């Protein structure tokens, strides 16, 4: 394809976006210099989880919703459990919260590593996937796999496995780490530090497209000193602050006909969630080593270049690793109280009290805030369920970004434009299998 | 825990080499095998070996050749599962592992001087071929030999050329029958049991030797008994799932007997009361 200098017409269709979770397409249609269509479509077959949850015990919700997405299975579980506990009026113990935080750190770390190395890196290296990198950058691929494997090994000890955690349930954990488990986790994670340093160093040498668009960033915020991931209020860079129970106001979802995912907006036409949003909102609360990494990467708040989400992920990775090590050290010093182990059984033995109610879970998963919202009756059966996925929240923003980006790259060839657009979408780390779960649940015949 | 090399392990295999393969039907192939060091397998007709392919598994297979053939032996294998299918992908020159021979074979000493009525169904011809070859190689030592063979279709007949040779011999009688056939088949069609009434035999000195698929036994035995062959002169060989071949793993157990060690060849009189045998 020849490189036309100034285009009046542009027609791009990326039918099956690769190196993202799930199926999406990009459609750009420009006629006479006017952008008629510019959309990211989610064409994943919908799986209707919200509908399937009806009539199920709220104690099963975690197990089922974990299957919405294999990448952030722990995040879905955590959000689901939070919503269930909120509905039932249960308060988890401090130890449970600590362990959950540890788990979330590990998942964010694992997901970011996957994204940085296996999904984004090929773009920067100008190849199609990590496969050619096995030959050209073997140590790099090995490092990525090693880091992932380490996270996995730790999660295996903590909750049985990363994909669809086993011992993580409403009320706590069905199995708690023993002293030798803590020691093993500590060893593995401290052993990860050199790889993490190498990751930051590598990223500091790379250049990302220079593009900025003033954006509203949304994430969890809190008044304490902890980098908020597992709890907090909803906040935005435009100064919005609200309780998680009001999340529907923050995620005005609407359906667009070309996509099986819904779109959202808050103060403006769109907003962004995810690593960059969290960094922009909460950078002051990062672990010192993570702040150091941000400085090394020259990442400064408020950053409005969506391509740099990758760098924010790297900074968060450092934070998660360091904070995970701290949590384990804390646990080692106070010891794990094995009596807090909870008995599973979908509450067959009524070990946990049940009351009718409504609950919301809001958790920062790798790609942004994930909301689960359940309404349960007095037997603990779900009457209504609703999950709002980060990628859905980002969809409108991605489209806005594309609209802003296209005019700046029109001088390039169509291939290059396509590649840049794909790269933009990928920078958001969209999880399309997640995004086919929509709001506005109405139940017929109930 | 330390790792110990067990020099006398009974699970150790003997190396062997395929020297010739012959496709008999689309599913069955005959393999001629030589043991490492050109040693003789030294088996009895009716005994079996464990054929071993590393990374795939082991399978019990009857020796299909007579011990009179000393330098090599043959097995006839039907491709049904992991080991047997993988075996079919091998060719002359390839190595395989062998354990055994295992089990009790046909009581050939007792057969000597007596008449034999051999009834083979399908793949049952494999162990029986070992017996038949042995009898032919020592023809003087035995009385009359009568072979009945049943197959599903004419295309399934194994060792058709050898059968033809035997048919031409004056000292063996053989007949075969198929369940189903196309027009060009001139032989009889039906169940193997229909051949038995027509056989002329002296029951007190005849041994009926029966090997075939499980369903066949009941009906054939009934016919043999009708011919007045005594129960202890009816000899059967059983197929059972086996893993160790050494009377331990439990798969081949028929009530209180282990097919791999106490069999696979049994006298009807010894197993007739066992409901799990048939």
């Amino acid at each position, binding site marked *: 394809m020849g490189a036309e200098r100034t285009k009046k017409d542009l027609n791009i269709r990326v039918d099956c976006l690769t190196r993202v979770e799930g199926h999406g397409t990009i459609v750009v249609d420009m006629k006479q210099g006017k952008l008629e269509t510019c959309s990211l479509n989610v064409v994943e077959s919908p799986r209707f989880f919200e509908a*399937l949850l009806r009539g199920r015990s709220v104690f099963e919700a975690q197990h*089922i919703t974990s299957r919405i997405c294999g990448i952030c299975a722990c995040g879905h579980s955590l959000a689901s459990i939070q919503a269930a506990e909120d509905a039932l009026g249960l308060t988890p113990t401090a130890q449970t919260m600590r362990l959950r935080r540890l788990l979330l750190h590990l998942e964010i770390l694992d997901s970011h590593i996957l994204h940085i190395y296996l999904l984004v890196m090929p773009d920067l290296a100008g190849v199609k996937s990590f496969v050619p990198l096995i030959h050209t950058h073997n140590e790099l691929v090995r490092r990525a796999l090693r880091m992932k494997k380490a996270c996995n090994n730790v999660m295996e000890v903590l909750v049985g496995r990363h994909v669809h955690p086993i011992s993580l349930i409403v009320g706590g954990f069905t199995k708690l780490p023993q002293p030798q488990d803590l020691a093993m986790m500590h060893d593995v994670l401290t052993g990860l530090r050199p790889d993490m340093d190498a990751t930051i160093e590598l990223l500091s040498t790379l250049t990302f497209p220079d593009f900025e668009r003033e954006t509203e960033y949304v994430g969890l915020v809190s008044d304490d000193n902890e980098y908020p991931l597992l709890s907090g209020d909803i906040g935005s860079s435009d100064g919005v602050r609200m309780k998680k129970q009001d999340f529907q106001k923050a995620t005005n979802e609407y359906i667009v006909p070309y996509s099986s995912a819904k779109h959202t907006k808050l103060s403006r036409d769109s907003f962004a969630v995810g690593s960059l949003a969290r960094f922009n909102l909460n950078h002051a609360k990062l672990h010192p080593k993570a702040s150091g990494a941000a400085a090394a990467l020259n990442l400064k708040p408020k950053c409005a270049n969506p391509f740099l989400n990758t760098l924010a992920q790297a900074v968060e990775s450092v934070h998660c690793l360091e904070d995970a090590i701290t949590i384990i050290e804390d646990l080692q010093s106070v010891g794990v109280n094995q009596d807090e182990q909870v008995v599973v059984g979908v509450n067959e033995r009524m070990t946990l009290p049940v009351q009718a109610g409504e609950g919301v879970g809001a958790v920062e998963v790798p790609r942004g805030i994930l909301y689960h919202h359940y309404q349960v009756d007095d037997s603990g059966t779900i009457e209504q369920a609703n999950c709002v996925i980060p990628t859905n929240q980002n969809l409108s923003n991605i489209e806005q970004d594309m609209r802003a980006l296209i005019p700046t790259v029109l001088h390039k060839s169509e291939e290059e434009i396509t590649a840049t657009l794909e790269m933009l979408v990928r920078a958001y780390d969209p999880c399309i299998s997640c995004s086919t779960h929509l709001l506005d649940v109405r139940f017929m015949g109930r | 825990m330390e790792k110990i090399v067990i020099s006398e392990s009974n699970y150790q295999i003997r190396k062997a080499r395929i020297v010739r393969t012959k496709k008999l039907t689309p599913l069955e192939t005959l393999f001629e095998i030589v043991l490492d060091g050109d040693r003789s397998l030294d088996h009895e007709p009716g005994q079996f070996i464990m054929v071993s392919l590393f990374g795939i598994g082991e399978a019990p297979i009857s020796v299909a050749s007579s011990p009179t053939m000393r330098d090599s032996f043959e097995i006839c294998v039907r491709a049904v599962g992991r080991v047997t299918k993988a075996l079919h992908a091998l060719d002359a020159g390839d190595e395989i592992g062998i354990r055994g021979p295992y089990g009790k074979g046909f009581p050939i000493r007792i057969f000597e001087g007596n008449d034999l009525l051999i009834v083979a169904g399908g793949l049952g011809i494999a162990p029986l071929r070992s017996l038949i070859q042995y009898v032919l190689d020592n023809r003087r030592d035995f009385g009359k030999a009568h072979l009945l063979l049943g197959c599903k279709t004419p295309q399934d007949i194994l060792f058709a050329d050898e059968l033809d040779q035997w048919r031409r011999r004056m000292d063996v009688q053989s007949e075969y029958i198929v369940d189903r056939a196309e027009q060009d088949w001139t032989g009889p069609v039906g169940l193997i049991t229909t051949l038995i009434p027509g056989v002329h035999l002296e029951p007190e000195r005849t041994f009926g030797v029966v090997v075939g698929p499980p369903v066949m036994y009941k009906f054939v035995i009934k016919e043999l008994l009708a011919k007045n062959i005594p129960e202890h002169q009816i000899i059967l060989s059983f197929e059972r799932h086996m893993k160790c071949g050494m009377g331990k793993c439990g798969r081949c157990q028929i009530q209180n007997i282990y097919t791999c060690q106490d069999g696979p060849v049994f006298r009807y009189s010894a197993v007739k009361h066992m409901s799990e045998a048939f």
Partner: protein
Amino acid sequence: MKRPKTAFFDFACCEGCQLQVANMGDTLLEVMGLIDLVEFREVMSEKWDGDLDIAVIEGSITDLHATERIKAIRKRSKVLIAYGSCATIGGVNGMKNSFDLDEVGDCVYGEGRWFFPTEQTRAIHQVVPVEYAVNGCPVYIPEFLSVLTAALQGIPYAVPDYAVCIECRMNENECLYDRGITCLGPVTRAGCNSWCVNNGNLCYGCRGMVSSPYVKGMKQVLEKHHVPIDFVVNKMDMYNKCRELDRNGR
């Protein structure tokens, strides 16, 4: 040995089973040395539309488009591996079959449901023939490797046809029935090394049922434990709803 051309394809699923592959660490590089990976959308941009030696299929078939797609893949693949519960038994996607399809769409998308026509969920073998199955939600990597090596050797792999209990006892877990909790282990196919029970949870039946589960006996056991049958049927349906389609024919 020529490395077989292999591709991963995903249908309706969470992609967790593919992630299990990415989680193998160094083992993944060993696997990559054995196969010629030509398409794996989740981590690769390369595409392949020629013939395939091995197609690994993740996810269930839930709409007409998917039906057409899987048929096309089948046509150009020598060996098809159904990978993960969604593919082998329908998995969690099968729960949809308990509901009226229009109503399900309505529930999630309201008026927008017409954009998303959906069909009854089916496992892969309920649409096209399948050579190998790797059960589990998610798949158990040691079992995947056994299946892969079998496929590379061209020999069959049989999914264990006995209960999870067998493995659970070998791992010396305390039986959940001893603690008054019902578990689907007695009717679920083994092969996962009783993963969930080892970690303090119960078996949800994600690997599908043994070929002849003794339903009447299971009901008696539940009665003895005063567990309502509906409760357990509901639990069984979490993964095994599509089994009904096997019974009723395709």
